């Protein structure tokens, strides 16, 4: 039976009515209007649907909406520390021109941001390992790697934007 579920998405409250088992991704996209997480596989294999749930990067296509009730959901559109600013990882992706079609970019930025928040001094090898498993079909890995390393350098120096 559909239930009313309260969510907090990018700092805004939303009440949605859905089956508790509905993948969080569909609720975010179709009920909340949060379009930055994307459907890539529905199988938690690619990362295009990544959001932060209380600061932890999760695959929203394989997470039931009930798991997000009363938790803080952050999407790429709400990642920046303040309106009009960008997260350090976002800025680095612009600086390194790290995207082609951009469909996967949500997964890389959200995963890298969570990784660097927990380990701002991540080594190159830790960065590669932390991003392993994410998919990019266009093949923009080189620029993504450069961008995340750049963000790591800036964040290690204390910058969040």
């Amino acid at each position, binding site marked *: 039976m559909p239930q009313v579920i309260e969510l907090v998405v990018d700092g805004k409250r*939303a009440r949605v009515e859905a089956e508790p088992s509905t993948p969080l991704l569909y609720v975010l996209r179709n009920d909340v209007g949060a379009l930055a997480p994307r*459907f890539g596989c529905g199988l938690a*294999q690619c990362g295009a649907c990544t959001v932060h749930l209380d600061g932890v990067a999760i695959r929203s296509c394989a997470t039931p909406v009930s798991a997000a009730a009363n938790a803080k959901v952050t999407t790429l559109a709400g990642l920046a520390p303040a309106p009009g600013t960008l997260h350090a990882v976002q800025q680095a992706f612009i600086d390194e021109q790290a995207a082609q079609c*951009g*469909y996967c970019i949500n997964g890389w930025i959200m995963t890298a941001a969570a990784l660097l928040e927990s380990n701002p001094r991540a080594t190159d090898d830790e960065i590669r390992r932390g991003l392993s498993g994410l998919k990019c079909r*266009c*093949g923009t890995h080189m620029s993504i790697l450069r961008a995340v390393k750049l963000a790591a350098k800036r964040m290690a120096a204390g910058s969040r934007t």
Partner: protein
Amino acid sequence: MSAFDDFVTTQRGTSRRDFLKAGGALVVSFAAPGCAVTEAAREPVLPVAGSVWPSKIDPNLLDSWLRIAADGSVTASVGKIEAGMGIGTAFTQVVAEELDVPIERVTLVMGDTATTVDQRGTGSSNGIMDGASALKRAAAEGRAALLALASQRLGVAAAELRVRDGVVYVAANESKRVSYAELIGGRMFDVKVSEKPAAKDPAQYTVVGKPVPRLDIPPKVEGAYRYVSDLKVPGMLHARVIRPPEAQAQVVSVDEGAKLPGLVRVVRRGNFVAVVCEREEQAVEAARKLSVEWSRPAPAFWPGYDELYAALRSAKPKATKEEGMKGDVDASIRMAARVVEARYEYPFQSHSSMGPACAVADVRDGGAVVWFGGQKPYPTRKGLADLLKLPDEKVRVVWMPGPGSYGMNDADDCAADAAVIAQAVGRPVRVQYMRADATAWDPKGPPVAFRMRAGVSSDDRVFAWDYEARGFSGRTRNNSTDVGGDTLAGQFIGGFKPKITDQPQFPSESYGFPNARKVSHTIDWSRSMPTGLRTAHLRDPDGMATCFASESFADELAFATKMDPVEFRLRYLTDPRDIAVVKAAAKEAGWETRVGPRARGGRIAKGRGIAYAPRNRSVVAVVAEVEVDTQTGEYRVTRFTCAHDCGFVVNPSNLRGTIEANLIQGLSRARHEAVRFDERRVLSNDWLSYPILDMMEVPDAIDIVILGNKPGTRSLGAGEPSTRPVAAAVANALFDATGVRLRRCPLTPEALRKGLAA
């Protein structure tokens, strides 16, 4: 501000539309191409099915390409689409340059059959070649028209006028000035585009040829870029398709009266089955749960690749083509002191776009609007009109960004499915494919089996080259959707004929062997049309396969004739631009000259290999460096060096990104990719069963040398060429490292381990 402007500015990130409170829920509001927006309501008004649109936008009229609004902002229209490689930024640069307006003042309309000139769409790396040249002509004509108007207004000859930031002024007296907005803002030009309007001297370029940051990247990293999968149309339903469980299976029965949560309708036409629901997750569930009984057909495929390649080698060809015939190859081979022969094989590969295709269709009142993410909206309009039995002019196809498509991915099939379903239910319908629909059911890059032979003289000179390819045509599923039978929907509904084309498979090298023969046999594969193994063009159609054969064989001949691989190429290549890229790549890579594999010592072996390829008029050489664990066969490409000549470069920083991504995608295909199948079905249906390159495997460095980049020379295609030599370069590097020659793609560690053990 028009809706389109709003959409474009949204895409460019300059005026993001944020969440709006509406009806108690947060909804996002954005305008799609072709919309008109009522500013008060801030609700997009979408084009409506049943309207009449121009059946053709006249390419000879300047107004078809260029519009200057009352505020002086410029809108340029083009019949190409942005497939994610940054072409929109390049187009914007070209228009800004010719018109002398700031790049921020230019917005771009792409690929809407009702508002942009039919340039077919994007493909064959022709975006820059065709799209940019058309826009350049239009913008140059526009500038001339504006200068003529300014000349009248200011009473000064046009030659005395200059333009800066969209303002025309008198060179000798800058206070005498008039803006584009004042001259024509909001009005039509009403002039024709001449054949060769006077364009700017390329030596004066300040925007074109410069590394302008891509306009689409900020909105992409902010999560504000909008794809077709983000489009919401009022009253829209969600649908999912149900594909046959086995190739050629027919529907026996469908539970059309099923009671499932949210189910609005089961759509069934022949073997076409879809479910339509109120909510998306309901459609996903209904497609899983709906009871459909299918026939058990005879096996349509083969147990595996050994049997497939054997079938290609023994089949009677449907068509045979010859190319580059020189001298007498048979006699030369008979006379040769030695004959070198090798067989190569290249598999089915999937586009496997990052997102499964999505399309939204509204079909009613005798017309249709379809939003999709495919590359060729204009032919697709014809194919959909055929499928829907509507006149072309009643069908409007609107391109919106999709995930990168790399050829004929699943986008056109999805558009057809959405259209057929929307026609059946009489309401707008959104279809997004599931992962399996994208990986197991997209049209595949075709498999090819090659036989190469060469005649070598007693003094180690190659004097005969014999190339034979046997493969399925990469246009079995045609390279555009001109008829309903080209789509899966048409195939499953039945009664629609596909437009099957035979596409021969030739390499494009310029080796000057005195006797040469290239033969391409196309094997009939028409029965694949309703299956997941139908073949179509995938990035650089047949290029990776044919180059894998010819450039691996060139390497084998270098070894057989006791030459270094670079030395061999420089000796036999004839085209100066080909020679230049080979030299440049070798130099930049720090190529170590030697004959035969590197001497091995220790468990880790290192090697380097080169391959080169022309593509149309662009040409590329790639050096791959590898590290191999000789016990396990595991290997990694540690560095690529690419020398690249695509003529005049519109945007150097974006060219770099394009080349890097092509090399990485090429490496993924060379190292990992082969669509798995058994006798009855495609077994690759997700990222586990169709793995692609992982971040752990990407090289440490990619070094790029650009050649031929001279202002005033023609800009050539860069979207595909650097993909072409990757498999051969890696195979050649693995041979250098280990002495093992891999002749079948993908180049797996298992195959390498077997070779090392042999």
